[in-house]
């Protein structure tokens, strides 16, 4: 694996992880400390962004555009969104609430993520056609 690619992913992920922390802090402050709402919004927004960045980088042949994808798509969006906390919240939901509520949360997260991704692809495509 080429070093610039790995470094792009690493630095993108570092920026994504820090952004997640600040987004989480902000979202918790406006969502009365609801960790479920906060993580849902973070994961959905990150899925929107990865769709957007994927379209922007598709068909790009030059090295710079490829590194852009590794930084923003694989690195930033990957680091911004998280799966481990998602699993932790599902386990907590199963233990403290009910299987039904955990299932509903998981379903909404997954469908929200897919819908946001498609929205990102469409908006990215529209902007690409304009430019």
């Amino acid at each position, binding site marked *: *694996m080429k070093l610039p690619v*790995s470094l792009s*992913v*690493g*630095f*993108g*992920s*570092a*920026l*994504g*992880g*820090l952004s*997640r*922390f600040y987004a989480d802090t902000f979202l918790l402050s406006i969502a009365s400390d609801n960790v479920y709402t906060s993580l849902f919004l973070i*994961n959905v927004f*990150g*899925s929107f*962004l*990865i*769709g957007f960045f*994927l379209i922007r980088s598709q068909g790009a042949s030059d090295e710079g555009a490829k590194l852009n994808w590794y930084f923003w798509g*694989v*690195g930033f*969006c*990957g*680091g*911004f*969104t*998280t*799966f*481990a*906390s*998602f*699993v*932790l919240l*599902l*386990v907590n939901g*199963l233990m403290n609430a009910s299987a039904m509520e955990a299932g509903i949360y*998981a379903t909404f*997260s*997954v469908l929200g*993520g*897919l819908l*946001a*991704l*498609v929205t990102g692809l469409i908006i990215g495509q529209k902007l690409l056609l304009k430019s």
Partner: protein
Amino acid sequence: MFIVYILIGSFFGGLSRFLLSTWLNRFQFDGFSIGTLVVNCLGSILLGVVLSYGIVIEGHFNREALIEIGFLGGMTTFSTYALESYDLIQKNKFAYAVVYLLGSPIFGMIGFWGVLFLNGGAL
């Protein structure tokens, strides 16, 4: 200082995710990539380990920042999970899409729970 811990953790978390999933994706099953699935489950298992064995303790903010928010947060991903699911749906591989969509959280939870079980159920 916690900002630096989050940056370092996320850097190495994202790097591990990339290297490990790229390596795992060499093993394709009829176009089904297992890289992100395995890395997400591994990250969930590791979260179980650091929480139940007291490696990350609430209040120890630097450890939370480095390991939980940074490394494991950066190592696991939801955006690629959505992207790869969508990709499978688009290729009409609905059975794989369902396995991937349901399998990721289910295997992640089983792994997380497995760790808690081994440690006597303590969190």
